[in-house]
């Protein structure tokens, strides 16, 4: 324990520093406005908060719907032990996306307007509705964990009866808004660079969300093993790795075919700012992980799988930043680099996510090992139910 203490203090100190910077940036944002707190302008109205916090945030939280579908719809029970940490990450992710939106919106107190002032022709309207509904679904999917801790039996039973419709709703809502984040950019054919503008943007955003969702489950297992000494069994990680390889393969083929048929493939040879960034995202997010995962020896080890997961996450984060920021720069005629206040807010939101996750793991039955005995989530209410009679 004494050896671990200094490392813990370092992370806490770093987190405190980030949160303090974020707090100051928050004050600047809400007292002096977007002009003083961001490098956004009339030429470049969307920056880091949309490009990273929203587009990447929603993608990184995709594990939630993939895993609930795997376990509850496809009935692959072996993945049940990781459902709780994944649903928690997804729920936290979506809440933090909404927090980030409150920073980015010019009038954050009107964030509820899309729910009552409709425009069904707007992709943003659809995303607003889907994210609202799906965050509610995630809250209900995670609620049993809290209810178990508090021993609320009746709401627990109620949630269990509607759990399958909830999971189905969650998968549909996720499919819709994960793809719709790509549809947001369908409206700018003359602005987004041809390496990224494609009629298939919604399809690409959906498949990449699935890939990153899987990668995040692997990555979280590694983080948990470092931080809490809890990790997944290797065979589970290996199955995830195999699925990840297939998903990446599908994405890579589709991406290549799309570039080919749109006649954008020659752009890959011409050296330019955009080409370099395209190669960066393709090598990190597709080529390297596919090559590594295709090797059975690497795929079989936890270390190899973690490495691939990190590459996939970084590669697709680069892809989304390219769609939302760098791919828009040349037609905007400006070079956008986020102001420190924008970075501080984003870093704080990520930091807060880690901190809340750590607290939840400490106080709630998230990891299977944290649940006493071998009681699985489903069996717990029985245990709770038995208590009164035992007491009597």
């Amino acid at each position, binding site marked *: 324990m004494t050896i671990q203490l200094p490392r813990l203090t370092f992370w806490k100190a770093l987190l405190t520093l980030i949160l303090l910077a974020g707090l100051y940036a928050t004050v600047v944002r809400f007292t002096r406005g977007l002009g003083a707190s961001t490098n956004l302008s009339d030429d470049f109205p*969307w920056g880091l908060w949309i490009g990273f916090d929203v587009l990447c945030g929603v993608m990184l939280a995709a594990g939630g719907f993939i895993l609930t579908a795997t376990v509850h719809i496809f009935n692959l029970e072996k993945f049940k032990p990781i459902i709780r940490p994944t649903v928690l990450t997804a729920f936290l992710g979506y809440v933090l996306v909404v927090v980030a939106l409150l920073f980015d*919106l010019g*009038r954050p107190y009107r964030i509820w307007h899309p729910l009552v002032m409709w*425009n*069904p022709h707007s992709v*943003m309207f*659809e995303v607003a509705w889907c994210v609202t509904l799906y965050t509610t679904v995630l809250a209900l999917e995670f609620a049993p964990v809290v209810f178990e801790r508090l021993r609320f039996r009746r709401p627990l039973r109620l949630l269990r009866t509607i759990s399958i419709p909830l999971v189905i709703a969650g998968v549909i809502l996720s499919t819709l808004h994960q793809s*719709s984040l790509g549809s947001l950019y*369908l409206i700018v*054919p003359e602005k987004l660079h041809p390496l990224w503008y494609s009629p298939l943007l919604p399809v690409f955003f959906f498949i990449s969300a699935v890939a990153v969702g899987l990668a995040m489950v692997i990555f979280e297992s590694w983080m948990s093993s470092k931080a809490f000494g809890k990790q997944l069994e290797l065979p589970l990680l290996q199955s995830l790795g195999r699925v990840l390889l297939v998903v990446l393969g599908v994405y890579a083929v589709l991406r290549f075919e799309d570039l080919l048929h749109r006649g954008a493939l020659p752009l890959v040879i011409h050296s330019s700012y955009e080409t370099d960034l395209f190669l960066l995202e393709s090598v990190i997010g597709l080529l390297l992980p596919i090559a590594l995962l295709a090797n059975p020896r690497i795929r079989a080890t936890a270390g190899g799988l973690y490495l691939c997961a990190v590459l996939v996450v970084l590669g697709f984060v680069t892809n989304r930043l390219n769609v939302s920021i760098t791919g828009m720069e040349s037609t905007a005629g400006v070079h956008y680099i986020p102001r420190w206040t924008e970075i501080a807010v984003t870093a704080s939101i990520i930091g807060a996510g880690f901190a809340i996750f750590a607290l939840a793991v400490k106080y709630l039955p998230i990891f299977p090992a944290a649940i006493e005995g071998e009681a699985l989530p489903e069996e717990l209410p029985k245990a709770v139910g038995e208590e009164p009679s035992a007491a009597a």
Partner: protein
Amino acid sequence: MSKAILYDSTQCIGCKLCEKACADRNKLPYDDKIGAEEKLSAHKLTAVEVRGDKFMRRLCMNCEEPTCASVCPVAAIRKNPEGPVTYDASRCIGCRYCMMACPFNVPKYEWNLLLPRVRKCDMCADRVAAGKPTACAEACPTGATKFGERDDLIAEAKERIARKPNQYLNHIYGLNEVGGTSVLLLASVPFAEFGYRTDIPKLPLPMLTYRVLSRIPDLVALGGVLLGGIWWITHRREEVAEAEGNQKEGEKKKE
């Protein structure tokens, strides 16, 4: 009938009275310094650009099928039947998707205000509704900016080009761009020289997203049945296995 503005840059003398009239009507400050700015901004809703002896106006094109109105999640931007594309600040949440999506980069933002609004020319919607011309058209001393019925103005523009083919570029900007706009431009030099993009699609952009969005109800129904069906099948196997197991156990007991 839909109204429009025809701006004939060959008749423009660069007096910028349209800028002044626009500022007055929108209660915005106007002086020589602001007059010298050749860019649209939250405090300048129309601008006259000067390149030597050539001039070009910039203002909201008030598209026939506005991209900004289609992307707005709260329907703060609307196309009025008379032509103007108006903005209702009381609905706006400040997502700035309109600015992102506008093919002409027209909407501007009050970045330095704590409660900012989007600002853009609204073709003097209140004046037009009252049967009056826009402030800029009324102020124009040479007739370079003309207000009228869109169909009439298109006919007139075609006639001007036909009468003096050497003086005009054979292109009415706004006739077909993104499905047509309520502001029509004539010029003697390529529009691209003034930063007007000539490579933008001729079809209305809102179609690009609507053809995806319109499939959502189908997708929801299909997804619900498909996922529910998969759940039923995967769990039915379990039930069957369990029932068979019980039966066998029962048989064993009988024995």
